[in-house]
């Protein structure tokens, strides 16, 4: 087995630099690579382009990088939970490209799978389609969208082994599997890092071939954005 293990987040993030493009897994704050984000938010790297469905909240997730103005451009589908984000966007400090969620997922997957581009009906006839090639298939209009081209992809899984095989949990899976192998280097952090042989090959969601570096995450806060409960009867 090829060993993908690195000692810690610092080693996992070796090579990150200003002006790079990063992809981050997570939906809202669920399944975000907390360790990598925490580390990156303490580095002197700026001018970043970040691909992430959301932009975190003011003091957690990608909000940490926004606070330090490390991000030049965000590519997201929904950014409603972050006041600092909104302020930077409206003042023009931050460049924002909003794209449909399914298009975002597929642009990740296309990069992973070696497709340079694809057609989708999502966004046809809207602002999203401006300047994009339109083509009709079976009587329906589609727009051309391109695969992402990123330097690093940061993902978080529940379990992983030293060969980089990953298993996700619940809806913390979200964009994480689609980002694996979509950037030049995929960095996976896991809650439980186990030796090879411990994971059932039948249960693996992402084979290690898509992962370059894996490490045991340290502390997971797993903050809940909307705690909703029902009363016990």
């Amino acid at each position, binding site marked *: 087995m090829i060993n993908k293990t690195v000692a810690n987040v610092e080693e996992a993030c070796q090579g990150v630099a200003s002006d790079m493009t990063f992809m981050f897994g997570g939906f809202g704050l*669920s399944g975000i690579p907390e360790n990598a984000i925490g580390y990156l938010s303490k580095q002197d790297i700026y001018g970043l382009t970040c691909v992430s469905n959301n932009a975190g909240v003011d003091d957690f997730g990608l909000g940490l990088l926004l606070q330090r103005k490390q991000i030049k451009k965000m590519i997201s589908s*929904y950014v409603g939970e972050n006041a600092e984000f909104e302020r930077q966007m409206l003042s023009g400090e931050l460049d924002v490209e909003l794209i*449909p969620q399914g*298009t975002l*997922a597929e642009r990740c997957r296309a990069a992973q799978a070696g497709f340079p581009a694809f057609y989708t*009906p999502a966004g046809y006839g809207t602002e999203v389609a401006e300047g994009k090639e339109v083509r009709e298939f079976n009587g329906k209009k589609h727009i051309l969208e391109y695969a992402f081209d990123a330097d690093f992809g940061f993902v978080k899984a529940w379990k992983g082994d030293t060969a980089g095989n990953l298993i996700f949990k*619940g809806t913390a899976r979200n964009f994480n599997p*689609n980002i694996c192998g979509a950037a030049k280097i995929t960095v996976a952090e896991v809650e439980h890092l186990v030796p090879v042989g411990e994971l059932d090959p039948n249960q693996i969601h992402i084979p290690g071939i898509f992962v370059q570096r894996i490490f045991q995450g340290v502390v997971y806060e797993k903050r809940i954005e*909307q705690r909703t409960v*029902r009363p016990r009867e």
Partner: protein
Amino acid sequence: MALDKNGIAKRIAQEVNDGYYVNLGIGIPTLVANYVRDDISVEFQSENGVLGMGPFPFEGEEDPDIINAGKQTITTLPGASFFDSAMSFSMIRGKHVHLTILGAMEVAENGDIANWKIPGKMVKGMGGAMDLVASAENIIVAMMHTNKRGESKLLERCSLPITGVGCVKKVVTNLAVLDITSDGFVLRERAPGVSVEEIVNATAGKLHVPDTVPEMNI
């Protein structure tokens, strides 16, 4: 009496049939799950990656790894499944989801919908809405008939940036059930005690009123 949000959800629940996979948007649509008949089998999809959503968890049983598209903690029912975002939108784009229910800021008589942006004021993003409306064949919009200033949300053309083109087929509001046809809005049902005149006055787009317009049965 005009309906409240739960009333709108209750009426829309009547459109949910046995065997349907249904995607519910944030807001009023989320309430629809509470009113679906319990003698039919329906599965709710949330585009962040779960099929077979259940009710909210009991206090103390919230799991940060199990949420819906509104980032609310949820539970799953027996037979549920989790999947990644690309697969989630394969379900949506590939027309495997039978019914999409979502909110809107404006709907036009040609079926256009606007619900993601107010230029200069509010830019939260479209999330999965553009994918949903571009591909779903059965879209119901749940919304109030007028906005907070009392202006109609059913228009000749959307004034806000649109989310999708000519995609809405049915609208359920606090006042009425309307279909969207090639001839504009068609009034199908009135909320209990609401007159046709009231609905006509609250609708800015072209509205066709049939000879008889029954009250909703809810």
